[in-house]
């Protein structure tokens, strides 16, 4: 049965993009365009996930968050916001939010987070991630391609492992920086390009099939199909 997601977002276009993307991933999506409608829908059905914008007409996102939590401790809630102040973040986590995404975001990032929240535990339980003939062993942190071992630095490994957790998914440079580096490097997206180039030299250069694909303007992804 399809997972059912409630999206409370007053900006129709933003709601459309998210709903369309999620439907393409075979989720069932209900959209509410104001706070009151959002709360009524959250109250009426048992959703698997709620995506909640904070700035809403009628009831505020924070108010809905608190009401949902009083009634239902289980449902994961992802907050969308146009503010990224630390104080806001802490306040909403305390009110029971499970994750937090600041606009403007890449849809890929939203999807990764939605899937992480719905999974209830890691999807890829096996310690070895496989993409084509590439193997990434998360326990020993060893990387093999076509059976041959590849030596990577710690950062190169972290980058590859992150890309390998979601094959075929395009990761934006900002997502990569946040996961592999930290927030201080925000805005320094060329560092990602440099590391991807080094990774390619070791990973793809000796092989005819290239696993790391560049999607211009969006980011990078690891895919079996290779770069056309």
């Amino acid at each position, binding site marked *: 049965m399809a997972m059912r997601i409630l999206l409370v977002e007053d900006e129709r276009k933003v709601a459309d993009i998210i709903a369309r993307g999620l439907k393409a991933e075979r989720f069932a999506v209900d959209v509410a365009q104001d706070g009151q409608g959002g709360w009524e829908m959250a109250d009426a059905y048992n959703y698997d996930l709620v995506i909640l914008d904070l700035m809403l007409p009628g009831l505020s996102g924070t108010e809905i968050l608190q009401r949902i939590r009083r009634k239902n401790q289980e449902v994961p809630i992802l907050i969308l916001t*146009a503010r990224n102040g630390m104080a806001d973040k802490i306040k909403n986590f305390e009110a029971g939010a499970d994750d937090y995404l600041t606009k*403007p*975001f890449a849809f890929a990032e939203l999807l990764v987070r939605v899937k992480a929240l719905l999974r209830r535990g890691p999807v890829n339980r096996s310690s070895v991630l496989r993409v084509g003939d590439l193997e990434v062993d998360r326990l020993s942190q060893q990387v093999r391609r076509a059976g041959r071992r590849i030596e990577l630095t710690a950062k190169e490994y972290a980058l590859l492992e992150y890309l390998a957790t979601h094959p075929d998914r*395009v990761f934006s440079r900002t997502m990569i920086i946040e996961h592999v580096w930290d927030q*201080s490097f925000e*805005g320094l997206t060329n560092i990602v390009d*440099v590391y991807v180039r080094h990774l390619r030299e070791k990973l793809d250069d000796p092989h005819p099939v290239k696993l790391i694909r560049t999607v211009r303007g969006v980011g990078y992804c690891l895919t079996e199909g290779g770069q056309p």
Partner: protein
Amino acid sequence: MNTRSIRFRLVMWYAGLLAGVFFLLVVLLYFNLRHFLENDQRASEARRARQITQALLVHVKQTGEAYVASQVKDWFEPEINGRFIRITRADGGVIYESGPPKDGSFNPQEVPALTPSAQAEFSRKLALSGGKTMLVSALNFQSSDHIGYRVEFGELLDPVEAMLNHLFLQLAWGLPIAVLAVAVGGYLLVQRALQPVAQITCSAEQISQHNLSERLPVTRTGDELERLSHSLNRMIGRLDDAFQNSKRFVADASHELRTPLTILRGELEDLAENQRLDPDLRSRLGSLLEEVERLGKIVEQLFALSHLDAGEAQTEWARFDLATLAKTTAEQMSLLAEDKGLHIVCHADRKVPVEGDRSRLKQVVVNLLDNAIKYTPVHGTVQLNVRTINGHALLEVADDGIGIPPDALPHVFERFYRADPSRSGDSGSAGLGLAIVKSICTAHGAEVEVQSTVGGGSRFQVRLPLSRQPDSP
């Protein structure tokens, strides 16, 4: 001494005005006194001449002229008292003339006969040898047998002159001293009067963009000074409003831009990933997405700046070692440098404990290193030094790159400022990196400075207060 200062000018006016008034007073006093003393002497001489006529010459017919002469000599003892007495008949015969005075102060022979006057009483000032002046009063008298007599009674004016000279000397000394005393007193008074102004100045100096909510102390004097402090306070209030408005504007604008950016990005991403589209079209969409990302970055940085302005950096305050932070950051960025053929050389003291928001201060290091890497040509070196100096932590990022022109140097920390406008496109940055460095430093009570020579590289220095907490065990 500053001759244009209000203090100097006020004191000069005081002193000048007073000196003028004093001078006028002295001149008036001198001439009045001189007039009074001469008149006094003239009156007493006339009185004595009258005594001679009324007591002696009235009876000259009975007593004879010789008796009058001997009586005058006995009564007035002119030689002893330094007086000049002469009694002459109308026909020119001298009845009596006093001899030279005992003190030799004048010679009676020098005293000329007075030019006749129709008046019964008259007086003349006569100049004698030795610069002396004698005031002679004369009295014409008609005896009962119609013989005319003239009595001349004279005394030197010297005592009067001496007294006046003495007075003049006293005043000539006293006047400058008095003026000087007034000037000094005036200076102190003006200083006292200007003291509140100095206080207002001092307080006004302390007010910057970070404490615009503070106000100047108001002296409850009900005068210009109180009005001045009120006006200044109202001006600070208006500045505060304007500043708050501009900050709120940046925060609101960066906030309002997020939703359209989300839509743009979402739609473009959706299209760019559509494999059925023409590759050329996809490439153009990619180019659009790159610009959307750049816009997003600018919005993010503006938001970060407005949060720093609002003191948001205080939320995650902790004590940590700046040396370790610098070393790990340099390591993380070394590949970025090597990619350009540069070396990052890191020298750090063993432990440099500071307090602050660790991730924010890391951003300072990242931005400064990124800046240095960006503007250093191939095979250059970027140095990162951390050490303690005079109770401060000093973080230094130096490069041997292209440097910054002197006219651009004061502006490098300004928002959206670029030393070289032709560079704007190449790195995808908006010119906010150093502004963020500056804001983070200010929020941490740190100072950031830059020295640079064109072609000789740049040196950025951040001076941060050391942590005063003792080492945790």
